[in-house]
């Protein structure tokens, strides 16, 4: 393997040659993100080319092994790639729950067969995945799920419903927690399965949020056949997989909170909107809140950096992901409260399309769910108290 200086140079050259101009700017709209999948409609030839070129090098998943469609990079190289992508403001070629959620547990717990079946299409953006965890009556008590999988020898017949499936109406395959032992205690008796969402008996219904948008669905399974060879880990041991996936998801959500790195600092937005008096922001009380926010934002960014460096130095992250999830989502809610305050009356209109007027309040409303989805803030604090701090009860 070439040394890192060479790698950086080659990466830079390749990106220069292969990243289309139009892919070198931040998203304007949510719809600018490319999610891949069977029914993917590319917004442009550039978007399609960018995905295909990156996938051809395995750089949609730089650290996955090459045999599964990855780039086979080590952590140092992956960091260089990330820096070089950031240098030219390159858009992510692919957004994917397959990568961010399913990938890690599948790599860790999946059989060789399952890895070869699923990982390469994920890496190429050919199959879009949906998550089937929550159920209407389970909520924070995830393990009390009731979706029922009856053992039919080589397959299960599954019945029940899931809720809060992100883009469930756009998914090709679903990974899903089902109950396979009805006698066992609730954390036992759960199995982690995968199935094609075009299988007979699968249907979805969008859930409209207070933001007016419908990024989630309910998902109904009516006598759906799921093959036993599509189980990750052992039957009745799905909770192990689920926990592993959740802690990765939390880390990702926390990261998203500060991933506003491309956008303007809140203080800058405020200074442009409100102006300065005597050199300081003209609304002194708002200024105090913004300063506290920006301090905490920097705190989280540095702590994520430290956690990553500690992982590299061999210290495991563990339950700390819950702390990040809590901190990051609370921070993101504060960010949007401040942006709403800064924007004042202009932010109060509901009309307007994806762009401009009416977009900010919808995003603001959407953030209120951050501290609920992926495990509520209360659940995260419980986890920190018990698993990290060792408090009893």
């Amino acid at each position: 393997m070439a040394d890192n200086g060479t790698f950086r140079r080659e990466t830079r050259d390749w990106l220069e040659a292969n990243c289309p101009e139009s892919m070198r700017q931040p998203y304007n709209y949510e719809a600018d993100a490319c999610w891949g999948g069977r029914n993917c409609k590319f917004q442009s030839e550039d978007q399609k080319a960018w995905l295909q070129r990156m996938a051809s090098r395995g750089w949609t998943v730089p650290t996955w092994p090459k045999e599964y469609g990855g780039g086979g990079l080590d952590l140092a190289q992956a960091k260089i790639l990330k820096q070089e992508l950031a240098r030219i403001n390159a858009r992510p070629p692919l957004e994917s729950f397959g990568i961010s959620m399913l990938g890690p547990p599948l790599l860790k717990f999946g059989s060789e067969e399952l890895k070869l079946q699923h990982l390469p299409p994920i890496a190429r953006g050919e199959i879009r995945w949906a998550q089937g965890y929550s159920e209407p009556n389970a909520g924070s008590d995830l393990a009390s799920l009731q979706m029922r999988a009856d053992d039919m020898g080589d397959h299960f017949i599954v019945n029940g419903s899931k809720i809060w499936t992100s883009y469930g109406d756009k998914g090709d395959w679903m990974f899903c927690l089902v109950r396979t032992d009805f006698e066992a205690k609730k954390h036992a008796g759960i199995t982690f399965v995968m199935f094609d969402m075009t299988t007979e008996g699968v249907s979805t219904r969008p859930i409209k949020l207070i933001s007016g948008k419908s990024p989630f669905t309910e998902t109904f399974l009516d006598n759906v056949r799921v093959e036993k060879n599509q189980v990750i880990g052992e039957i009745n041991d799905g909770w192990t997989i689920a926990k592993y996936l959740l802690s990765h998801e939390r880390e990702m959500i926390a990261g998203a909170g500060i991933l506003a790195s491309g956008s303007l600092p809140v203080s800058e937005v405020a200074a442009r909107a409100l102006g300065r008096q005597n050199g300081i922001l003209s609304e002194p009380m708002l200024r105090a809140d913004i300063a506290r926010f920006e301090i905490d934002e920097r705190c989280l960014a540095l702590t994520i950096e430290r956690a990553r460096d500690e992982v590299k130095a061999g210290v495991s992250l563990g339950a700390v992901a819950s702390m990040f999830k809590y901190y990051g989502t609370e921070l993101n809610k504060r960010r949007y409260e401040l942006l709403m305050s800064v924007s004042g009356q202009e932010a109060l209109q509901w009309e307007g399309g994806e762009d401009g007027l009416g977009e900010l309040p919808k995003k603001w409303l959407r953030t209120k769910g951050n501290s609920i989805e992926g495990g509520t803030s209360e659940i995260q604090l419980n986890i920190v108290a018990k698993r990290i701090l060792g408090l009893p009860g």
Partner: protein
Amino acid sequence: MALVLNEEQLMLKDSARSFLDSQAPVSHLRELRDSEDREGFSRELWAEMADMGWPAILVPEQYGGLGYGYTGIGIVLEETGRNLTPSPLLCTAMVGAAAIVKAGSDEQRESLLPAVAGGQHLLALACDESSRHAPHEITTTAVKDGESYRISGRKINVADGHIAETFIVSTQTANGVSLFLVPKDSGGVSVEPFRQLDTHHAANVAFDQVVVNKSSLLGPLDDGLGLLDYLLDVGRTGASAEMLGLAQEVFSRTLDYLKERKQFGVPIGSFQALQHRAAQLFGELEMCKSLVLKALQTLDEEPDGDPELASLTKSKLGETAHLAATEAIQMHGGIGMTDDFDIGFFLKRCKILDNLYGDSLYHLDRFARLRGY
């Protein structure tokens, strides 16, 4: 005056509550939204409110009103806040009526107050020009031209601006600030209505060389800043009363949910962390009740009001109502985020009321300035 409601006020409160519970609960707002009502409120309901005498509460008896004062109208606003009922009450029956009662000429009172009291004439205070509330920064001008004034400028986010028959407009005149009553059908007035995020409507209103007679001047020429501040303080107190109702209702729904929703085999209201947050919120709401009542009584008792109290009330209510609404969503969990459920409507309405006439941070600052620091 004792910080409790008297008999008459308790009766008014009860009747308002039972009327709104049956005629205009939150589902009423939802229907208006889903039917994409052009005005965002119900004229029929307004007629019924007028039959109940609500737009007449602040109007003196000699002009066909009830003379129940600010505390009276505040009590009713608290109840509409509880039900998120859209209506012209705040802008017409409180701010608008106060403007004419306080500063109107005999002619203005006689021509407007009976119609206001009857609910036939709607008013709107047009006072904001920049996105952040800054009512003293006025670029709209009223230039004297013989016996008339020519008004030019643009006011934004005028609450009830989409339905008002008459605007109360803040302007720069030769030597200061003056308020004018401008009929919406005056030549040169253009109204751009829009829907707000709480599904109430509002409007931006442009005045292009609008000619009004000098008899349209409301209050003193060039010296209207005090009147403007007074009317804003009236509006702030009214919005605070609405937020008080809203906050209490959303808290009450949350308490019910805490008692009923089970997780891990027990009601979630048995979790101590939630209990403590609910108890803290209860305390804040008790504070808010005292503030709103005191602020309303003070408007009834002090001819010029108490700007410091108005700001502290608006600031505290904005903050507490927001806390109540966001805690409600968090404690309801996923279902609180869905449009099918009503909780989100409270958060949205709260955002609008907090912003109206200056948000909680604006008033935190104004409070400190008024206290001299």
